[in-house]
């Protein structure tokens, strides 16, 4: 692996797996919290749709560099968090097998992709963009995302052993995400 690829892989990974990266991290938690591990189709579909659209958004930005207002993107990401965490709280942590969560995840992926690009653009010195750096960062983001999902599933399994139902866990996580998301707005 080249030094460029590994460096930007690391940057992408820790861009997500970062205790301060509330926005992206909590969105993934709120999105996945109510879905049982056994219901692999809904969570895989939601995760895949989110990955596909935020990667597409980053690729489009790399090719076209559409000027976007950074402040609007930040508010957009927060809005995705409010909706996703708010939904969990509204449904009291219940998983709705028929809900097409992948559509929501896919739409919100475009907004998160724009945010990822905005941050990535800062990480690349002026004039030094290459697709290798883009690939490293994108792969790192995906790796970080998978690590967060894996940690969430492990946490849920531990709480389940302690007598918490999936619904209770999802409700608590959703409430926490919504609380932080509301705070981030002010």
């Amino acid at each position, binding site marked *: 692996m080249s030094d460029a690829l590994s460096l930007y892989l*690391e940057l992408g990974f820790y861009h997500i797996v970062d205790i301060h990266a*509330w926005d992206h991290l909590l969105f993934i938690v709120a999105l996945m919290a109510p879905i049982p591990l056994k219901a692999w189709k809904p969570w895989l579909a939601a995760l895949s749709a989110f990955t596909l659209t935020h990667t597409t958004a980053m690729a489009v930005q790399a090719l076209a560099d559409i000027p976007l207002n950074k402040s609007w993107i930040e508010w957009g990401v927060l809005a995705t968090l409010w909706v996703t965490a708010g939904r969990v709280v509204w449904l009291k942590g219940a998983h709705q097998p028929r809900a097409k969560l992948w559509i929501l995840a896919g739409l919100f992926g475009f907004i998160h992709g724009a945010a990822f690009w905005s941050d990535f653009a800062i*990480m690349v010195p*002026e004039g030094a963009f290459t697709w290798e750096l883009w690939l490293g960062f994108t792969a790192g983001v995906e790796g970080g995302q998978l690590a967060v999902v894996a940690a969430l599933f492990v946490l849920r399994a531990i709480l389940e052993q302690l007598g918490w139902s999936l619904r209770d866990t999802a*409700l608590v996580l959703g409430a926490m995400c919504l*609380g932080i998301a*509301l705070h981030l707005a002010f």
Partner: protein
Amino acid sequence: MMRFLQRSLLFALLLVGFVSADRHPLHLSSATLVQTAKNQWVLKKTLFTDDLEEAMTTMGYEPIRLSDVAHHQAKVQAYLDAYFTLYKGSGDPKTAKPIAWTLDAPYVYDPESVHIVLRFTAKPPFQVVDGTLLSTYADQKNVYSVRKSAEGWSQHAIIDADSPSFVVQ
């Protein structure tokens, strides 16, 4: 009773979230290091304006606004003198000889970022020790791309608190 407890817990969690979080801070600077002629190097570095202002304030200066370029050029120079060093070779910086550099004046200001240009003469290998913003922000990363010829970027490096230097080969 359970419903009351559940609602209390939810309220507590909302409150915890409400007082504990901050938006995702991005503590980064980026730089290109380009060899323009044999052993002649130009380093162009971009730093977030608010980060640099904060770092310079904690260094002991009065709270400053870098928009006043003429007034603060010398302070930026002093800050870089304290935190940015180049050394000959790839050995221990304690025993290596420093390489002199010059800062272009004036630095370029915009509300979001400050752009500085350093020039120096050095024969690779040499070390870049860039401590700018590292002592102010524990998660600060200074990203570098190096180009020695027209063939493209030959090296990329990240400087952070764990590895505050890199060697240009």
